[in-house]
Structure formats: structure tokens, C-alpha cells
């Protein structure tokens, strides 16, 4: 009950809706009231958590093993004296996954600055190049190594999908990086990249939400951040309240979903065996 303003507004809205409902709910489609309540409830949960995060509340987020793996990969590159290759996907900054990829890049750049390992980031969109450069520069400044940063770390190859893949492959074969990180939105080129990375014996870590590409990454890379895990990792690294609050809010909704599944199964069992209660499945069918 920390956020008074939120609760006042919410209860006001509920009272208003109840009055509306008992006044004969003019112009309201009653068949969909279950959906309506669900939407309001979930939205309120999300909003509440985002507001809490913005007010400075800290939430616990479980450690994500993939991030630990990245640290080890950078460490190994340092030991071997070889560069780290970072591929932020092939799409533009309007994709959530690219944004997440660039956030993780900031984290990687801090590590390479700390360990004095060279970092190579080929990109396929000019806007991504700008964003990635900015993030890297900032990371090197924060680690107190602005001298080590140069713009050529992040360089543009080409927009074309396969031409980009060919270019990255060329870099891998020439420079033989010890760690290849693929974090962003990928399509068919995922295979080509992961295969070449494997053939040069690099540690490979991937992160993407492109469902069709996850299987290829899981089998060809040493570690893969799967879908939401990738977003959660980037939220955790970015420390932006709206992202962290969002992760927390969605977690709460997930618990609610699981509870509803179990509850609906039980209710269904009770209803079908003894005819007690109501048909939960019918309730969930909204047309």
C-alpha cells in the first residue's frame, strides 16, 4: 500500500465501473466482461510495478546464468589474447531485440575495457552503429579507459542479410576471436554465423527471441539466452525502472496464470464430478 495515489485512482475507477454496471451497463458488451476485468487487472499490475520501480523500489531479479557465461567468455579471450566479436542482430533499432542487444553490448564493453581485451562489433544498420558506438564509448569512459576506445570498434558492414553474414564470417576467419556473442534479432543467418564460429573453436553465446532460430543457437552455441530470459537480462543490465518494473509485473501475472490453470482444473473436476460450483471453461470462453 505504498503508492497511495495509485490505489485511490484504481478504487475510484472500480467504484465508477460498479455504478455503471448496476445502472444497467448501457452500451456495454456483457459477453466480454471477463476479458474486460482481465485487461484492467493485468494493466493495473503492470502499471503498479512500473510506478514502484520508478519510485526507487529495488526488486530482486534472479541471476541469469547466461550473463555469467559472457563474463567467462571475455575472460578466456583475455587469457588467449584474442578479440571478442559481438553481433547485435541484423535488424534496426525499432526492434525490441536490437535494443536489448545494444544494452547487453554496453555490459560486454565494460568488461573488455576492464580486461583490456579488444572488441569488434560489426553492424548492419547505420542507426544501430550510432547507438552501439555511443554505448561502447560510455562503457569505456565509466571504466576509466577512454584511451582504449576508438570508433572503429563498431563498424558498419552492409544492410543485406547474406552479404552481412559473409562479411562477419570473413572477420571470424581472419581474426579468430575467442568469443562470439550473438545478441539481437536474427533470421536465417544465425546458422551461418554459428557454424563458422564453431569451426574456429570460439566460445559462443547467443541471445534472441526469434523462436525459429533458438533451436539452431542452442545446438551450436555454448550458451543461449532464450526469449524472455534475454529481455530480463537486458532489463537487469539497463537498470531502467520501466523495464525492471515490467519484468516484475509480468512475473506476477505469470503466477496468476499458473494459479488460474490449477484452479480451473480443480473447479472443472469438482463441477464435472459432483456438479458443484460452475463451469470454469465456459467462463474463460469469451466470444
Amino acid at each position, binding site marked *: 500500500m505504498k503508492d497511495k495515489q495509485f490505489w485511490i485512482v484504481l478504487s475510484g475507477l472500480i467504484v465508477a465501473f460498479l455504478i455503471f454496471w448496476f445502472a444497467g451497463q448501457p*452500451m*456495454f*458488451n456483457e459477453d*466480454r466482461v471477463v*476479458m*474486460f476485468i482481465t*485487461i484492467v487487472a*493485468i*494493466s493495473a499490475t*503492470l*502499471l503498479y510495478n*512500473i510506478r514502484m520501480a520508478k519510485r526507487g523500489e529495488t526488486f530482486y531479479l534472479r541471476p541469469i546464468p547466461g550473463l555469467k557465461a559472457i563474463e567467462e567468455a571475455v575472460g578466456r579471450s583475455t587469457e588467449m589474447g584474442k578479440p571478442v566479436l559481438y553481433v547485435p542482430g541484423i535488424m534496426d*533499432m*525499432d526492434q*525490441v531485440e536490437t*535494443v536489448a542487444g545494444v544494452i547487453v553490448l554496453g555490459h560486454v564493453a565494460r568488461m573488455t575495457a576492464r580486461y583490456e581485451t579488444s572488441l569488434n562489433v560489426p553492424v548492419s544498420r547505420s542507426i544501430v552503429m550510432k547507438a552501439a558506438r555511443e554505448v561502447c564509448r560510455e562503457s569505456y569512459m565509466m571504466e576509466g579507459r577512454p584511451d582504449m576506445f576508438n570508433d572503429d570498434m563498431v563498424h558498419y558492414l*552492409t*544492410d543485406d542479410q*547474406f552479404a552481412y553474414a559473409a562479411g562477419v564470417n570473413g572477420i571470424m576467419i581472419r581474426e579468430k576471436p575467442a568469443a562470439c556473442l550473438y545478441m539481437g534479432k536474427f533470421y*536465417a543467418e544465425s*546458422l*551461418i554465423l*554459428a*557454424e563458422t564460429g*564453431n*569451426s574456429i573453436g570460439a566460445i559462443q553465446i547467443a541471445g534472441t*527471441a526469434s*523462436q525459429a532460430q533458438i*533451436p*539452431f543457437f*542452442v*545446438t*551450436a552455441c*555454448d550458451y543461449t539466452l532464450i*526469449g*524472455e530470459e534475454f*529481455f530480463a537480462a537486458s532489463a537487469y543490465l539497463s537498470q531502467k525502472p*520501466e523495464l525492471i518494473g*515490467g519484468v516484475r*509485473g*509480468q512475473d506476477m*501475472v*505469470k503466477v496468476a*496464470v499458473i494459479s488460474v490453470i490449477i484452479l480451473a482444473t480443480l473447479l472443472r473436476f469438482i463441477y464435472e464430478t459432483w456438479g458443484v460450483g460452475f463451469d470454469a471453461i465456459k467462463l474463460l470462453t469469451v466470444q
Partner: protein
Amino acid sequence: MIWKRQIPILIVAFIGALTLFGWFVEEPNIKAFVDDDATQWYDILASFAIILGAMNLMKMQIQKVARQKKGWPYSIVAIFGFLFAITAGFFIKGVDDSVAVWGAHVTTEGTLFKWIFDYMFTPLSATMFSLLAFFVASASYRAFRIRNFEASLLLVAGIIIMVGRVPIGSLISSWVIMYIIVLALGIGVNTWKKDKKITFGVVGVGIIIVTVAGMMTGWPLDKPAIFYLPIIQEWIYYYPNVAGTRAIMIGVGLGIFATSIRYILGIEKSYIGE
């Protein structure tokens, strides 16, 4: 500033809320607007967005040629392709009005536009996608490794689906699968106990049991059903696979819902580049 920033946010909030609550409203005028006209406007703007995308692409290619950047002669090819398609789309129909009027020409047999579609667009796009078959083949040889338990689970499920789905899978007897399982069991026991005697014992007993059972039943191809590839394949596909996919689906569904709500409430503003 208000034009560039606040108004777009306001438009998203208003249209988003209207569409979302349009699902619940029973007022005929609002319903008609939300269901018919608003969606039509969306369709029209979607078309403009596609045209804008095409023009943006051409702008980039022309700049590449003008500044003679690396690989610019290929950009001329791209520009040529664009102009060719536009010519067929807007200027040269290739048939009389009796065959196709303007507007119908983009779908009618015999027009220049259809020719481009058949002999240029189709082979190019289809071949682009079929290239991937080759990459899958070489990656399956050189990169898909059983690194850990998760990856092996993935690969085994994948192989069962791959073989069980196609006709050749139904030609593989369930007894062959049983022998393979016995051998796999042997490998498992070997890594666990690290004793050759026990391994040979397990494999030997397994083979004898399977062989005796087979001789007694007369080696039917698809019995016992739980070892018949097409049946295993169908089970994996319809049950464990659905369970896993459903978990992802619910997660993604909630994610999209959350993003949409953030858009409508104006918390997420990435579409204006923030």
C-alpha cells in the same frame, strides 16, 4: 516540439484506447467506426508505409550511386529493378482494357506485371529461401553438437520428428528402434558405472529380450506402438511439444499485451525514436 512529440503520443493513446475499448462497446456508431472505418484507415496507412519503405530504399540506393560508395554498380541494378517493376505497375500494362483494366492488371494473366512476378520475383524469392536447406545441412554436420543434456534432448526430439514425419519413417520397424534404445541404454550405463562387464551384460540381456519377444510376436512392423517412429513422433508433436510451446506462447502473449498497454499509456515511446 508539441507537433513532433506530444501529438504522436496522443494519437497512439487515443486510437489505442478506442480500439481496445471498441471490443466492449455496443454503441452502433462507435462500433461502426472502430470496426470498419478505423481499420480501413489503418489499411490505407499501412499501404502508404509500404510505399514509403520502397521510396526510402531507393533513396538509399541512389545516394550510394551518387557518392560512388563501395559496390555502387550493384545499386544501379537495384534501381533498374525498381523502375522496371514500377513501369509494369503504372505505365505499361501489356494487354488491352478488354483483358484487364487498370487495377486488375496486377493480377491478370498475360500482363507485364504478371510476367515480372512469374519469371523474376518468384525464382528470386523462392531460391533465397531454399538456400537455407544447404546451410542447415552443413551446420548439422559441423555445428550441431550434443554439448549437454538440453542439447541432446533437442536433437533427439528433432531427429524423431524429422524421420517420423516423412514416409521413410513408417518403413522403419519398431524393433530396430528397440535395438537402438538398448544400445543407447548401454552407452548410458557405461558412462554411469564405467564398467565394461556391466555394460555388456545390460546390452546382451536387452538384445536377448528384444529378440525373443520379436520371434514370439513375428516381428510386426508397427508393434509395439510405443516404439514405432510415426507414433512416437506424433506423441512428441502433440503433447510435450505443445506443453513447451504453450509456455512460450503464454509468455509471449503477456509480453505483447504488456507492450501494447505501455504504448497506449504513453510509457513506451520507441516509435518516435526515444
